[in-house]
């Protein structure tokens, strides 16, 4: 040690990837520290994936396990698929943060602890009988400590920030230290702080000083005299931005409205983890979008249905409990055959469940959770950036087929971020829509329920159009005229027509492409946000000498036409899902495939190695 400090600083150790987790009290600013680290890594050119994880309570009791908030970021010099199974570095701002995150740290990993928070009171709150930083219980890890609170106080002394607010900057101290350790550029941090808090304001100064103090602490303290370098990733050429799923979804909806030449209308009610879509679109009023924060979930979809009737691209955003409340209106949208997009950013349920945690357990509700025979198209994005494309696809289907559509995102996609190679926004696929302007029946009669021969869609005649006055509603419609009909044969025919319209969309979506060999020993089928960890798990299995193939579904109703043929090619089919096997049940019922489930309902995404292990288990199983 002694000699090492006397020698010149060592060159940074090269790593191809690292997973860092910032963990602290929910008031410690860990989400902010993680997001800033992510942004400067993005600016540096690393590939990355993030996993923010926080409690439902805004401020759970300080220092408790319940109040721990964390942000994990995986940065690499290659194209990565997941936020990382285990953390190489854990920043622990207090004992509770250490205790609730230590199980996810790789053996031999680095723990960087804020020693000032490891006092008796906080140790008691976290349930530690002795101080883990000194009692030897962390001997499998490399532990480093810094008096972050004391040094932050000293650093911000001249900033003008006073009293308890001083300690608010300690996340910037931690960020500074980690930024030094991983050779991150500092300019993006400074720029962001000035922009966010106002150039030269006491808060901006305090945060910058705390950041510098952390950065310099690493530079000058012998214990820390070791840095790492993760080179920029060799990503495909192009322009990139770092984006979360909710942001991409919001932009995709805005883009879809532009492509269709329609006004975007979003009626919504705040609910975790969907709220930020409403927030994002609400700030885009200069695009001509209309947003409406309704009195409840039912009104959120109700105003949207009214806007759809009146010719807008109408959307409502929510999470599981809200879908339940909106289901009656979705059935009306289906009966009136109006285009409407319901975005369900799934969270762990039932009931309030784990509102800030991820799950994929609304699939059955999306497919079947309505009264009567009420099939709807259901789509799911596979990554944060894919939410842009899937939003456009949802709009295309809704408008072309005059049907409500459900888009199933989830809490992991909503808040997780990744670099997105930007498409050519001037060359997005157009969405052709046509409002009816002329009578379509004999003698100037308008038939609101006449169907397009190919799509089965009915005409969209919006209020204000002369000569096409008509009534829609929840009572069964007579074919063509749309008049109320209690005729039994008509009801059967209309029920079939509505189902056939949705089934027919299978002719209008791309075939699935299988990743891996046609004669692989196992096919892994996934949907939604598990794409990255499942693909990584399949890759690991193949690297280990097994033969696994992977197919990922973005269209969940109807399924792509070739799904049945693909399933039939494989003896073993594995379906990893963050539920108890909902897609598996649908696949087994529809295709009689012997699919088995890998289930996880811990409010957390899959780790790639969990998928790998299940593949290996199934392939080693002689049965």
């Amino acid at each position: 040690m002694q000699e090492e400090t006397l020698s010149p600083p060592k060159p940074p150790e090269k790593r191809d990837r690292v997973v860092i987790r910032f963990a602290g009290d929910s008031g410690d600013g860990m989400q902010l520290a993680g997001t800033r680290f992510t942004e400067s890594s993005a600016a540096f050119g690393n590939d990355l994936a993030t996993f923010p994880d926080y409690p439902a309570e805004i401020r759970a009791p300080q220092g408790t396990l319940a109040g721990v908030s964390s942000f994990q970021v995986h940065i690499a010099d290659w194209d990565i698929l997941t936020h990382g199974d285990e953390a190489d570095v854990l920043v622990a701002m207090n004992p509770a943060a250490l205790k609730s995150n230590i199980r996810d740290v790789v053996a031999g990993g680095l723990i960087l602890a804020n020693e000032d928070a490891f006092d008796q009171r906080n140790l008691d709150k976290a349930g530690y009988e002795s101080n883990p930083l000194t009692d030897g219980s962390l001997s499998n890890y490399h532990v480093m400590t810094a008096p972050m609170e004391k040094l932050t106080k000293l650093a911000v002394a001249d900033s003008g920030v006073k009293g308890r607010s001083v300690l608010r900057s300690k996340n910037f101290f931690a960020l500074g230290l980690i930024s030094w350790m991983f050779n991150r550029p500092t300019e993006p941090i400074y720029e962001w702080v000035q922009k966010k808090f106002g150039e030269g304001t006491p808060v901006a100064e305090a945060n910058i000083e705390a950041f510098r103090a952390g950065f310099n602490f690493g530079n000058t303290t012998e214990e820390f005299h070791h840095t790492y370098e993760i080179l920029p990733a060799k990503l495909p050429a192009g322009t990139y931005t770092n984006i979360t799923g909710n942001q991409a979804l919001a932009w995709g909806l805005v883009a879809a409205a532009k492509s269709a030449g329609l006004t975007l209308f979003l009626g919504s009610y705040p609910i975790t983890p969907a709220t930020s879509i409403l927030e994002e679109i609400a700030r885009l009023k200069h695009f001509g979008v209309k947003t409406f924060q309704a009195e409840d979930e039912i009104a959120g979809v109700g105003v949207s249905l009214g806007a759809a009737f009146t010719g807008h691209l109408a959307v409502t955003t929510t999470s599981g409990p809200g879908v339940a409340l909106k289901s009656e209106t979705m059935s009306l949208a289906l009966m009136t055959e109006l285009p409407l997009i319901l975005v369900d950013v799934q969270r762990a349920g039932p009931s309030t469940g784990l509102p800030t945690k991820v799950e994929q357990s609304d699939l059955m509700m999306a497919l079947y959770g309505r009264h009567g025979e009420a099939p709807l198209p259901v789509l799911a994005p596979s990554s944060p950036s894919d939410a842009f494309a899937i939003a456009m696809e949802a709009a295309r289907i809704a408008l072309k087929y005059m049907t409500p559509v459900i888009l199933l995102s989830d809490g992991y996609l909503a808040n997780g971020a990744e670099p997105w190679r930007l498409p050519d926004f001037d060359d997005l696929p157009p969405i052709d829509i046509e409002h009816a302007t002329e009578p379509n029946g004999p003698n100037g009669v308008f038939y609101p329920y006449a169907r397009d021969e190919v799509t089965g869609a009915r005409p969209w005649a919006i209020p204000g159009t002369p000569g096409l006055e008509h009534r829609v509603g929840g009572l069964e419609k007579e074919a063509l005229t749309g008049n109320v009909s209690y005729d039994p044969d008509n009801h059967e025919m209309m029920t079939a027509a509505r189902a056939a319209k949705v089934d027919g969309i299978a002719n209008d979506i791309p075939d699935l492409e299988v990743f891996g060999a046609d004669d692989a020993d196992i096919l892994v089928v996934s949907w939604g946000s598990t794409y990255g960890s499942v693909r990584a798990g399949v890759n690991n299995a193949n690297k280990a000498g097994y033969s696994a193939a992977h197919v990922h579904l973005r269209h969940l109703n109807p399924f792509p036409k070739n799904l049945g043929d693909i399933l039939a090619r494989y003896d073993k089919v594995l379906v990893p899902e963050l539920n108890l096997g909902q897609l598996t049940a649908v696949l087994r019922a529809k295709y009689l495939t012997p699919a088995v489930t890998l289930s996880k309902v811990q409010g957390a995404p899959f780790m790639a190695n969990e998928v790998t292990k299940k593949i290996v288990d199934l392939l080693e199983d002689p049965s």
Partner: protein
Amino acid sequence: MTTDTRYTRADFQSGQEVKWCPGCGDYTILASVQNFLASLDIDREKHVFISGIGCASRFPYYVNTYGMHSIHGRAPAIATGVALADPDLTVWVITGDGDGLSIGGNHLIHALRRNVNLKILLFNNQIYGLTKGQYSPTSEAGKRTKTSPMGSLDHPFNPVSLALGAEATFVARTIDMDREHTTEMLQAAYEHKGTSFIEIYQNCNVFNDKAFQILTGRQEREANRIYLEAGKPIVFGKDNEMGVVVGIDGAQIVKVEDVGLDAIQIHDPARPSPGVAFALSRLAHGPSGPTPIGVFRQVERATYGDLMVSQIDDAKARNKATSISDLVQQHGTWTVE
């Protein structure tokens, strides 16, 4: 009102067979509304009727305009979407006491407070008709029905009081049988900018016949209808011998000769505070005695739709960067060669 009657009532009849019970008050209201629409100089396709569920809510099927028969209680929400999507439309909400005040009470009060440009007609028959006679949120306490064989325990809503409490900008009451008064109220509601709320006492001759006998019966009506007219003292009775005074304890019915005409309240629906209108609404809870009809309140307040449009216009004027590329550039990008 224009004299250029390019429409007749027939232009607003949809041709669908009207299926209310014979003798239902809804027929009268339908005729009043259709005649009123025909009298307006406004294109037929500019009207949209949105309803919920219930007897009253079948209304849109019978009116030859755009319309939607929607979900129980949700009409104000759906109509809000229509009104915000196209401010040029005249959007009517047809609801009832069960639809608008029970299952849909929440949407109703929020539409009223927001002042969305809607004309809400609440047909109050004080009973659930479509489900064949259960007590409603406006049924009198103690009402015996099939679901309340020992009498209803519910304290009823007074719809006018409720609307005033929600700070509605236009609140009126009328009676189905009084077509002239109904038309007057429709006209006033039509001209009002914002949410207009009209409670229409409507007789359900099958499940709650003569609920409003006191206001419609030949013998009783003169003594019990209190016509509210702006700028006039609130007096009623055969010889206007009765009147209303408003004091700290609310509104009270007095003999004019006891207090003198100068003490009688002069009706002013434009008062900024809804207090006096609320006091007037408390005169009758039922109705079981003298009951005010007419416009309780009519004040000006910016409509939600106008405010929404002006926010969008402001945003457009301030920020011209309206391509997705602009959005992404502002968010921050980097280039990989």
